[in-house]
């Protein structure tokens, strides 16, 4: 007898789905079955409806849509058969939650089921109500549930009690209905009902101070129940590993905590029992430990005797050493709860807590970190920071951010000296720079800035750190800032607090240049480096800013070479005069450098090559890492000429960086027609690095109008012979022109 697929049993459907080899196949099977189910729903077959819905709920669990079963749930719930109701209520919990429009429609069915006598059915209704009952539903059905609290069947009573808890959460005013029955319910012997009752009372007390006051009267009764559980036990059926109903014990202990908090009398009533539980509970099994932990937390939360508190914290300390990791975890969690209120007691266990940092278990080390950070104070800050730094170096990445900010925060609060503070922050930035918060940079710069006596020390340490590693952005930013501000102190000589460090100017500038050009540097970092370079241009020369502004010469167009020369030598003379004595040696060092760069002419006072653009000298100035005397001149080169369009190259080798060459490409147009859409591109051999900056424009106006210039930066680390190819594209006289050529006759000074 072959069953038609519309009455396929659930097991068969499961089997078919399992046999599908691909996702697509599975989808196919399920879609086919859903079609059958839909048809069956339409036909309204009441006998098999529950089976169809069961299958639908199964495919729903697999992630397929099942909303078309909503109405069927309602029909099944309304059916008189338990089989139907069972699946129907389950479906309702899955498909008819509060957000569905049809949700309210189950209210009537629930009402009926609550009041008709079969306890299994009442149980179903209560279960659904407690799982998905909306506020409106709870209001409607509160009195029904209240009646059930007095039902003869303990099964129904226990479910009704828990449903009441849910109802109070949804509609707090219902507390008024459910408070009175509690007194009688506490006399229950059935553990399930008792458990629910304790939870109900707990919920009521947490919501209302009046309820709290009311239930304090029951503390003696609660103590009695707990004592009976602990000593003789109500029933062996509820024992777990020899502990009598630990779930109930734990719940009672929680309630006692709430009732005894800030209340002397209640606390006193429970004191003896708590002491008894704390000392007599068998800790060899998990159940006993669960009770013990709850006891400890209760002792610490109420107004307990001092001796008892000490006992409690010691229990926690012992648990920290337990070989069972679960116990250690809960111990750490509990200590964390106590660290504010009983700080000194918890401090005593600091060494053990710090040990837990070394745990390979992520959950444990996370807790240990939280607790360690909470235990840092002014007397242990040095030792603790040491431990935490060690942890930072090896901890899992998801904890690094918390650890780093924790250390920085602790350092801010408890730093014994400014130097220690700087050192600590520096170490954090070096270890976990990428994980620190954004304000770390600002904080450190402010810290250093405010500690004048430590400027020299800071700049040296930061310089050394930067020289080793330019990848950690916050560190690079602070270091760049510091070098910019205190670069003069860096070059000065020795500082007692650090090892002797001889730093040359070029090294500093080269380092900052490296930062500028590194692909790892963020735009903000480059900004810091640029600013530092600009600051150094004054600080290393010893002049103040006003002087550099003064020095920019006004280049007149067509001014004679001789005039230029005279002006320049006057200015350089001014320069040397203005320099205060201590920086004299630096100035002369620069001039020495220039002598090296210079060719046979040996005259360092040559003017810069005449540049048709007025901003030419300005460009030179800004491009140089430090202020000129004028760089050694390299003759200009005319590289291209066609129909009045002329291309000239002028070269600058900035002193201080022997591998850098700056080329300015100048395009002039003496013809009668404008040159438009002018683009100049350049290519160099592989070992070179080329950077093309944006041109001043793409139009070279006719008849000697304003020329366009473009700057090329070429790095030649291998000091290989320079070769340069240029590609020009432009429109001139209505024609588009493209020219590609190699520049010949490049002077050797461009690369030697």
């Amino acid at each position: 007898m072959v069953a038609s697929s519309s009455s396929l049993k659930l097991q068969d459907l499961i089997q078919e789905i399992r046999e599908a080899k691909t996702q697509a196949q599975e989808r196919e099977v399920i879609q086919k079955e859903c079609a059958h189910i839909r048809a069956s729903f339409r036909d309204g077959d009441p006998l098999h409806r529950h089976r169809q819905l069961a299958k639908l709920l199964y495919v729903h669990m697999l992630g397929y849509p099942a909303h078309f079963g909503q109405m069927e749930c309602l029909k099944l719930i309304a059916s008189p058969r338990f089989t139907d109701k069972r699946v129907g209520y389950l479906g309702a919990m899955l498909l008819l939650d509060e957000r569905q429009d049809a949700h309210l429609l189950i209210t009537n069915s629930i009402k009926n089921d609550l009041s008709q006598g079969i306890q299994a059915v009442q149980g179903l209704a209560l279960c659904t109500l407690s799982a998905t009952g909306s506020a409106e539903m709870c209001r409607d059905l509160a009195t029904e549930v209240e009646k059930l609290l007095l039902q003869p069947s303990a099964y129904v009573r226990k479910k009704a009690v828990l449903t009441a808890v849910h109802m109070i959460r949804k509609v707090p005013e219902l507390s008024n209905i459910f408070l009175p029955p509690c007194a009688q319910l506490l006399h229950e012997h059935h553990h399930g009902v008792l458990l629910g009752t304790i939870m109900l009372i707990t919920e009521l007390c947490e919501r209302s101070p009046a309820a709290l006051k009311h239930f304090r009267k029951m503390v003696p009764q609660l103590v009695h129940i707990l004592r009976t559980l602990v000593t003789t036990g109500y029933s062996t059926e509820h024992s777990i590993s020899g502990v009598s109903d630990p779930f109930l014990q734990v719940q009672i202990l929680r309630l006692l905590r709430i009732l005894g908090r800030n209340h002397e009398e209640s606390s006193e009533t429970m004191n003896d029992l708590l002491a008894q539980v704390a000392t007599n509970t068998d800790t060899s099994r998990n159940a006993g430990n669960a009770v013990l932990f709850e006891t400890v937390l209760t002792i610490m939360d109420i107004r307990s005797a001092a001796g008892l508190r000490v006992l409690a914290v010691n229990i926690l300390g012992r648990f920290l050493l337990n070989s069972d990791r679960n116990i250690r975890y809960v111990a750490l969690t509990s200590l964390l709860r106590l660290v504010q209120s009983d700080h000194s007691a918890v401090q005593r266990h600091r060494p053990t807590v710090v040990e837990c940092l070394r745990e390979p278990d992520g959950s444990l080390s996370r807790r240990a970190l939280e607790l360690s950070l909470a235990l840092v104070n002014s007397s242990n800050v040095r030792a603790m920071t040491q431990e935490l730094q060690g942890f930072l170096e090896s901890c899992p990445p998801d904890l690094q951010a918390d650890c780093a900010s924790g250390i920085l925060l602790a350092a801010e609060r408890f730093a014994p000296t400014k130097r220690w503070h700087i050192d600590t922050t520096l170490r954090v930035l070096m270890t976990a720079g990428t994980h620190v918060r954004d304000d770390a940079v600002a904080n450190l710069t402010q810290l250093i800035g405010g500690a004048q006596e430590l400027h020299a020390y800071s700049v040296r340490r930061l310089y050394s750190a930067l020289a080793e590693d330019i990848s950690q952005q916050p560190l690079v930013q602070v270091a760049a800032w510091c070098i910019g501000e205190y670069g003069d102190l860096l070059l000065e000589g020795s500082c007692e607090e650090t090892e002797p460090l001889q730093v040359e100017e070029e090294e500093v500038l080269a380092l900052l240049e490296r930062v500028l050009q590194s692909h790892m540097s963020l735009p903000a970092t480059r900004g810091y480096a640029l600013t530092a370079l600009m600051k150094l241009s004054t600080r290393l020369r010893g002049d103040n800013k006003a002087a550099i502004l003064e020095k920019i010469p006004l280049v007149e167009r067509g001014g004679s070479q001789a005039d230029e020369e005279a002006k320049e030598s006057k200015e350089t003379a001014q320069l040397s005069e203005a320099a205060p004595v201590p920086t004299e040696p630096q100035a002369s060092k620069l001039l020495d450098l220039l002598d090296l760069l210079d060719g046979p002419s040996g005259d360092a006072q040559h003017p810069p090559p005449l540049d048709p653009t007025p901003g030419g000298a300005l460009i030179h100035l800004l491009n140089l890492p430090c202020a000129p005397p004028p760089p050694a001149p390299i003759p200009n080169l005319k590289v291209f000429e066609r129909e009045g369009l002329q291309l000239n190259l002028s070269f600058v080798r900035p002193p201080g960086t022997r591998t850098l060459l700056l080329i300015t490409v100048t395009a002039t147009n003496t013809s009668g027609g404008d040159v438009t859409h002018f683009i100049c591109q350049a290519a160099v051999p592989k070992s070179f690095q080329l950077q093309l900056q944006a041109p001043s424009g793409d139009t070279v106006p006719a008849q000697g109008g304003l020329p366009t210039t473009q700057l090329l930066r070429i790095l030649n680390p291998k000091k290989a012979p320079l070769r340069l190819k240029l590609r020009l594209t432009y429109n001139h006289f209505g024609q588009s022109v493209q020219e590609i050529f190699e520049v010949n006759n490049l002077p050797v000074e461009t690369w030697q």
Partner: protein
Amino acid sequence: MIKAILIFNNHGKPRFSKFYQPYSEDTQWQIIRETFHLVSKRDENVCNFLEGGLLIGESDNKLIYRHYATLYFVFCVDSSESELGILDLIQVFVKTLDKCFENICELDLIFHVDKVPNILAEMVMGGMVLETNMNEIVTQIDAQNKLEKSEAGLVGAPARAVSAVKNMNLPEIPRNINIGDISIKVPNLPSFK
């Protein structure tokens, strides 16, 4: 409060899930995936508690899990639950399933997944612990199953008849019964599937 109870296998395939808070279906799936991702990364010798997880791990919540053979049982709870207590609760749950299915294995869970919510409903209700006495739970389940069977009554009669015949131990029926001169051929009983 218990926020969710999840059972999935070593490969992350969900075998059962129950949510006690109204999450959307998409969120539910994400939670299952994320929970598996977190739990599967854990070593064997670590504690059974996990924090974190963006969806279900809001400040208060944690995951408490136990690994039995090919299945992970994960309870997501908030801080009002005792961690060690939940560990014991998982144990009770598994023991109860064991009793109801007679030595439960993953295959049982696959083919009888419709029975699991009924069992769980006797233990946890509305996110709160209802009953922890295994015998009580099993007794209730048995009573309910009996109720279902008795209801099957008339409707189930044909199916029950068929299975009764299948189980009948039919003695060897001779193919030919000789009563004097008449030869009656006994037809072969059709095989029932």
